[in-house]
Each structure stands twice: as structure tokens, then as C-alpha cells.
């Protein structure tokens, strides 16, 4: 079981952050992002947060204009991933203070640092917000 990729995509379908945990070529990434964005963005609030795609699942959640899409193996615990997305958002909130699409866009490196502290090779490393943010805060103090 594991996370295959984490995507953050806005309403218009533009990718704001992409982190893959299995190697895909650029063409494969482009095709995949196109397909799943089309699939997930068309869904409404009354539908569930899971979409089956090829031989894996996408667990997604929408926050205002931003969609968080996480690709996982079929036997992964879907609700655990759904709440893990929320944990990512809460962590970013804590750092940026009411995080928005632009924060992620213009602080690409910080978003990457945070994800790096939370997920490694498709597995969760840390779920405590203060532990996740500690290295980033340390760095900011140093600057």
C-alpha cells in the first residue's frame, strides 16, 4: 500500500504542485494529470471522494479553488488518505496562516519541504504538525 502521487490543481485544471513517488515520464505525467483532472473536477459535492482510475484510486478533496488529488493503491484505506489530505492543509494553514492557492504557487519550495517531511517514497513519515514544521521554522530563523 502506498501513495503514488500527490497533486494540487486549481479549478482551471492548472497544476500547482506535483509530487510523484513512482517514476513516470513527462508524457505519462501530462496524460495522467489531464485524465484525472477531467474526471475529478467534473464531480459534485454529493458524490464521494474516491474515483477509480486505471488500476488505482484517486482520493480527492476540494478546498475553495484548489483540489488535492492523491493517487493510491486500490487496497489503501481511503478515509485515512482523505484525512491525511486535511492534515496537509492544516499544516500549511499553520505555516502560512489561512493558506491559499497563491501561497502554494509562490512558495513552491516550502510546500515541497512540508510534503517532504510528511511523505517519503509513498509512505507517511510524520503526522505531528509541530514536528513537520520544525525544520522549516529553523531555516526561517537562520535566514
Amino acid at each position, binding site marked *: 500500500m502506498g501513495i503514488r502521487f500527490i497533486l494540487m490543481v486549481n479549478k482551471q485544471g492548472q497544476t500547482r504542485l506535483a509530487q510523484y513517488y513512482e517514476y513516470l515520464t513527462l508524457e505519462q505525467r501530462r496524460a495522467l494529470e489531464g485524465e484525472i483532472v477531467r474526471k475529478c473536477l467534473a464531480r459534485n459535492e454529493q458524490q464521494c471522494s474516491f474515483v477509480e482510475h486505471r488500476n488505482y484510486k484517486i482520493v480527492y478533496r476540494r478546498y475553495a479553488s484548489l483540489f488535492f488529488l492523491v493517487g493510491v*493503491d486500490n487496497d489503501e*484505506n*481511503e*478515509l485515512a488518505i*482523505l484525512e491525511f489530505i486535511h492534515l496537509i492543509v492544516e499544516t500549511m494553514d499553520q505555516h502560512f496562516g489561512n493558506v491559499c492557492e497563491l501561497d502554494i504557487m509562490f512558495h513552491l519550495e516550502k510546500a515541497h519541504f512540508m510534503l517532504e517531511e510528511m511523505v517519503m517514497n509513498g509512505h507517511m513519515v510524520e*503526522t505531528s504538525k509541530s514536528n513537520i514544521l520544525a525544520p522549516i521554522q529553523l531555516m526561517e530563523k537562520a535566514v
Partner: protein
Amino acid sequence: MALSGMRGLSVFISDVRNCQNKEQERLRVDKELGNIRTKFKNEKGLSPYEKKKYVWKMLYIYMLGYDVDFGHMETVSLISAPKYPEKQVGYIVTSCLLNENHDFLRLAINTVRNDIVGRNETFQCLALTMIGNIGGREFAESLAPDVQRLLMSSSCRPLVRKKAALCLLRLYRKNPDVVNVDGWSDQMAQLLDERDLGVLTSAMSLLVALVSNNHDAYWSCIPKCTRILERLARNQDVPQEYTYYGIPSPWLQVKTMRALQYFPAIEDPNTRRSLFEVLQRILMGTDVVKNVNKNNASHAVLFEALALVMHLDAEKEMMSQCVALLGKFIAVREPNIRYLGLENMARMLMVTDMQDIIKRHQAQIITSLKDPDISIRRRALDLLYGMCDVSNAKDIVEELLQYLSTSDFAMREELSLKVAILAEKFAPDLSWYVDVILQLIDKAGDFVSDDIWFRVVQFVTNNEDLQPYAALKAKEYLDKPAIHETMVKVSAYLLGEFGHLLARRPGCSAKELFSLIHDKLPTVSPPAISILLSSYAKILMHTQPPDPELQNQIWAVFRKYESCIDAEIQQRAIEYLALSRKGAALMDILAEMPKFPERQSSLIKKAEDAETDTAEKSAIKLRAQQQTSNALVVTDQQPLNGTSPVGPLSIVKVPSMSSDMDAGDHGLTQSNGSLSEMGQHATTPDLLGDLLGPVAIEAPPSASVQSEQNFVSDQEVSSSVVDVLALAPAEELTSAVQPIGNIAERFQNLCLKDSGVLYEDPYIQIGIKAEWRMHHGRLILFLGNKNTSPLVSVLALILSPAHLKMELSLVPEIIPPRAQVQCPLEVVNIRPSRDVAVLDFSYKFATSLVNVKLRLPAVLNKFLQPASVSMEEFFNQWRSLSGPPLKLQEVVRGVRPMTLLEMANLFTNYRLTVLPGLDPNPNNLAACTTFCSESTRAMLCLVRIETDPADRSQLRMTIASGDPMLTFELKEFIKELLVAILMTSPAPAPTPPPATELAIPAAASTDPGAMLAGLL
């Protein structure tokens, strides 16, 4: 909005953002790439800050979907920067841009290593993370020991160790040898004592990866996992930062329960009890709350607990509780819970005895088939498909057919395939099957693949009773004004082949049938026209005496297509015309199709192929595999009440996907190959090939196309061609029969259980059900024909050893299609012996003769009855049986290592009663049992095993009974149990026992010297 520390990067990002269209964006990106390229070229002038900035720009461009084919070197070189900010960028961007096989990674290996062994823990973290994400084999070999050391080091802080755990997981995946199983299992267990939840979360992922490959080595982790669950779910003993909406780390709970699902069973009763206590608490204590996040998190835990309960085969009561919960979930409004309820209910189907309880929810599940959400509809479809069996097939298939007309396009193909498979697998009678498939083609022709209608044709061809019915149905559909092309094909084919069977009905004369078919010709495509032409030729042949008017009509059609641009159609038209002028000779060549050889339904194969694997074997799949091996297939289905000549399809189980099954198909494909060499254009795929192959018998060698006249006059040539072709497939088929599953393993399973499958191949399945009473036994052999045509020359002989009296009731020589016959076999045990009875079974199918010799599970332990004696009785008896030959002692070496508990379980499984506490030494084990045979009557046997905790590979055993032969046989029997690796759990044995290990004790038992040594 606070801007990033790197101004240039922010400017670039907002430039891209302000682009009006994709073209502008491309221009801006190209400009930037050019800029970066020049900067990198004169690298000398670049400050670390600038380098860092450009590398981030590259990552951003890459994320937008543009190729970045340079600058990798610069990125990798940042890894060796002395300062943290640059180093960090180097590591992170490298793991985003490069893959594990990239050459540049090798350049960094030394730096990475230095960072790992160095003292700076932030550097350690960076290096571990990158290897954890993209490290390959090379890294695994050179860095694994260092990573292991960090993970186990007491001086390392948790922030390093949690990364080391996942890094090791990656290295283990790349090269499993880096983790030495023997040494590592203790360390893994030790890791689970960790207090820090970050380290524990990572360690649990590592454990999941390790046990999914080899659970045997990690037994000691089970109690630890249970304790972690207790700590989280019961004691809530977790730091505040790790509780999520009041729930102690839901992710760690989920992961821990997942790890437990990779163990086939949990044997230690204490651990099992504590685990069930926690699970029960989770099942009962999860309430629906207002807060979405809390609700999701608690249900994540709940669903994982459900999965674990199912896996552990809990008591029926707890299972029913689970189904009740799931039943509640599939009816709630919350779509996520509804989806998961359906998904987990489908998993529940794999638990034995649960199907009936699940069936109660059928109505609700059917409602979900109409849910507005496609994800939910898919789950409902899957579940209905899984729960379908003979009892509800009609309802479910009809429901699915109805749904087909309104379902979305994305699902229709899958749906059609599933309907076709269910109809085939569970048809109560074959005419229903034909009805369903024709309806399917009618409603969703576009989504019905050729395989589906080929299969109908095969069934109809192989079952004479079905032919008039199918032809009539075909005619009814052709009467409709607009029908799908596939319907035209199948109807034309059926009417061509079997239309003459309807001749006496009104409106079904050859002429009427022809015009009915011919009406459709203008509407169909060339492949269908070829089929129509064949069917005209058949109609012509069946019209005896010839009807000149019809003949002229058909000839006119053939002539018209003689000059058709499509080569296939042209060839058929020319040849049919020539052949049909031959009059009587036509009869032989265009005779009815021979029966099709049986093969696995290509549909089922297709459905199985569609299920693609994920990298890691999931626990559920593993379980499914374990279950197929001991699935009891026998169903008590009454034969139909005479009206239908076809037996019920009750024995058709889901054929497990096995490469053996392709054998039949394979032979055929080859035979098609030989056909096409003879001049037939086999442009159509495999199945169409062998469907139309024999029709195309009339297709002559290519030479005759050129000189048609010559061919027609030369009768001999054509008949020899026919002979060759007709024989070819038959010869290909012999020796293609391979058993499904492992025969030895099945036998071994049956030695422990009283019902199950003894043997299976593509044509037949032999099941056994046994009852044992004292020294009598009654076995019932269930012989199930899996085909649509009969098995003949069935012969069953029992080769019984001298100590068993066996009587098999009459086995019929023919087993009708899809039928099952039951043959009782009476067994009487005369005296103790370990010899095994053999069933010599043979049958003929088509031209292949199959003969197998199968060991029958009428083994010594079946005549044992668990006995219970008091301590006093045991010792009295023990003392009275003072020495050889009534009491034998032997030191057994080469025992497979097992704990005393495992040994006790093994004994219990073989009906020896273990008497705990009887022997004061905790390393010893005493047991007793009663053996029944005609010569000994019921006789008490006593067993004592003395083990050496320092060396588990040897033990001393003492067996005592009132009969010398019994004592000896029982001793040898138990010895075999202890030495050979018999499967006590349903899990597939990881490796077969090495032959040498088995051979040594066996030799010892026949060697008088060794025997004597044993007795002393």
C-alpha cells in the same frame, strides 16, 4: 501575500501566471530555459544562491509539463554544497527530477554516504530522504548497513530514525538481501517497542513491507502490534500533537491493523483475545459525529478494524455484527461511507458462510446500482457480481440487463462482460443463457465483444437440444426492423447452421429464412457479409431436394460478390459458388460443425486479465489465494425436473486463473495456424479463427482459386484437404490436459479436513466429503463435469492397501454435460498402518484420454478419536505399558523448528488430545488419543514429547499403546508430521520442503540399525 525569498523565482512564476494562453506561456518558458542554459554554461560566475534559484525555476517548469533536459548536473552538484539551504534544494529537486537509473546519481553516492555517516543530523535527514525516494540497487548495496545502524541507534534522535526506517524500506524493495531475515526479525520486534509515534509510524510501514514477503519470520511482532493498538485505541496514551480531532493517531492505528492482516492467523490465544477486545471496542465505540474530519478519521479506523476482523475469521457473532454495520453503511446518505460499505461488503464475500447474510441486503445493493455517483455504481456492480450464485443469478442478471439500457457508457462494456460471465457461470438452464446473451446483444450490441457471441455459438453447437430453441430465438430477433450488427452475425450464423431444424414451423422455410437474413445484408459491414455468405451456403446445403428458385437467388448473390473488393468476401463467394454446383458433394463439405473442444471461457479469462496487479501483494489478494485452495465446491443442487436435458451448472466454480488452463486454447491456436497455411486468410483473431475455421474447410489450397474448374472436378484433392483439416485440431488436443492446483497440496489439506477438492483439471473436478465413525468411514466422491459436452469412458478403480477394506459404488461410464455424480465409498479399517489408498481415475474427453492416480485421504489420523484421560489414568496406563514393543522411544532429529504451542496445535489438528500440565517439565508435551480398527478395537494411545529448548531441531518422543503394531505405526506417523513440513495453516507453504530433509528420516525408519538405536 508574502513573496518568496527568491525574487527572480517569484517574478517568473507571476509572469507565467499572467500569460493569456498556452502559446504565450510556452514562449515565456522557452525564454527562461534559454536564460538558465546560458547561465549554467558559464557556471563560474554563479553564486550558490543563483544556482538554487535556477534549479527551482527548472522544477517549476518541469511541473508545468515542459521537458527540462539539461541542468541535472548542476542540480546534483548542489548536493555537495557545504551550506544547508543549497544542499537541501539539491536533494529535494534531484529526487523530483531524476529517477533511480540516472547516471548522475552515481556521482553523488559518495557525498550522500558522507552525509549519512556524518554528525550533522539535518544532513542525515536530507540524504536519507532522497535515497528513500529514489535510491536504487547500488545505494542498497553500499548504504544499507549504515542506514540500519542509524535506525537502531539509541543515540540518534527520532527525526533521523523515522527517515532511516523508510529509507531501509526502499533499499529492501530494491534488494531484499540487504535485510538479513534471521538477524532482523528481533530488531524489528524491538523497534515496535518505540515510544515516539513518528518512528513507530515509519517502522510500521517497514513491517508491512517485510511481512508481506515473509510473515514466518516476524511472528514475534504480533503481540507488539496488539500492544500498540491497545496503547492507542484503548489507553489513548498518546502525546497531544499526535491526536487528530481527539483520535489517537488514526494513521498509525490503520497501519498497525494492516500489518496484522499479513499474518495468516494469530494462534496465541492470549494475544488473540486482547486483539479482539480492542477490535470489539472499535466496532462498538465508533459513532457518527457532526465534525466531518473526526467522523472520517474514526471511520478510517473502523473500516480497517472490519478488514482485520474478516481476516482473522472471528466468531460468527462478531462477523454478523460486521455485516450488520456494513448493511447500515450502504444505506446512509454520506457518499463516502456508502462507497466504503459496498467495497468492504464485497471483501466480506470471501469469508466463508457470510454470503447468505449478505444476500439479505441485495435489494439495497441494487438500489445503489442507480446511485448518481459512478464510483458507487461501480462498487455496487462489483458486489452484485461477486455475490451472484445459482440461487440469485436470475434476479441479479435480469437487474443488470435492465440497468444496461440506462447505465453510462463508461460502464457498459464492463457490465456486458459481467452479465455474460454470470449468465454462463450460473445458468439454471442453457436456454436461459441463450436468452440473456441475445438480450444483451440487443441492448448493448456496441459493447458486446466478439468473444461473447462466439461463446453462445459454442454452447449451442455443443448441445443439440438447445439448437432448435436458439434458431427460433435468432429468427425472432431477425424479424425486428433494426438490429445491431452483432445480432445479425449471431442470428445468421445460428440460422445457417440450425435453421433447418425449424423447417416445419410456419414462416421458417429455407426460402423465408434466406430472405429474412438477406434483408439485413445492405446494412452490415464486410466481416458480417462473410458470415452471411457462409450461412447462405449452409441453407443451400440443407435444402434437400434442392429448390431451384432459392438456388438461383443465392447463386445470384454469390456471383455479385465474386468481384467484391474485399478479398475475404470474394474468396468465399467464388468458393461457395463452385462448391454448391457440385450438388451432393456439398453435403460432406458443408456438413454441420463438429463440437467445439472445451476450453476455459475466454470471457472469464478476459475479466481476470483486466485485474492488474499492484506492486505489493495486497493482504486481500493473498487471502483470496489461500481460500481458493481449499474451497469446497460441492453444492447440493437437485437435478432439474426432467424437462431440461441439461444438468444444472452447479459445479462450475470460478476457475482460478492458472497458466495450465491455457493449454487447451493453445493447442487450438496452433491448429488455426496450420489452417491458415493452407490458404485461408486468418485475418481474424484467435477465436473467430477457430469458429470459422471449419466452415472454411471448403477453402481450398490457394492453387485451386486460380483454376477453379480443375478443383471442382478433382474430388480427391478436396476430400483429402478435408481430412487433414478435420484431424488437425484433434491431434493438437491430446496431452493438453493439466491438473489445476497442486495435487499433493490438496491431498494434504484433505488429510486434515473432511471435505474439499481432491483433483481438478479443465474438464473435471473431483470433490470429497467424508464422515468417520470409529473404524468405519464413508467417503463421497463428487465427480463434476465442467463442460458442455459429456465425459465418456469414466473409470474409477480403488487400489486399497491391505489394512483397508474399501468398496466403491458404481461409477457411471458417462458424466453428462455440466452434471455432477456422487459415488459413495465405504471404508473399513482393519489394522493400523500408514499405507495410503489410491484412486486410479480415467476418462476420455474428445480425443484425449486422461488418467490420474490420486491418493485418497483415508489416512491413519482419520481413525483417531480425541480422548481425554485424567492424570491418574494416564500415569497408570503409562506405567503398565512398560517397554518395547508396546512402548517405543526415539530421538528424532531434523525436526522443523516450531514452538511447543505450534506443536500442540498440530497435534490437535491431527486429533491427538494435548494434555497440558500433565508433564511437570514445561518443555515437554503429553497427549493421548484413541485409535479404532477392527483388530485393535478402540485403543488408547499415549504420547510424550520431550523437547530441548536449546535445540529445536531435535526431540525425544515416546509412544505407548496396547498393540505393538499400533505403537510402531503411530510413532512413525507422528515422526513424519514433525519432520515433514505439513501445512497446518491454510497459507500456502512458502517453499516446499527440501527433499533431503524428508529423505533422511524416511531412510532411518527402514534401516534396522537406526531403528534399533531409536528403540534404545
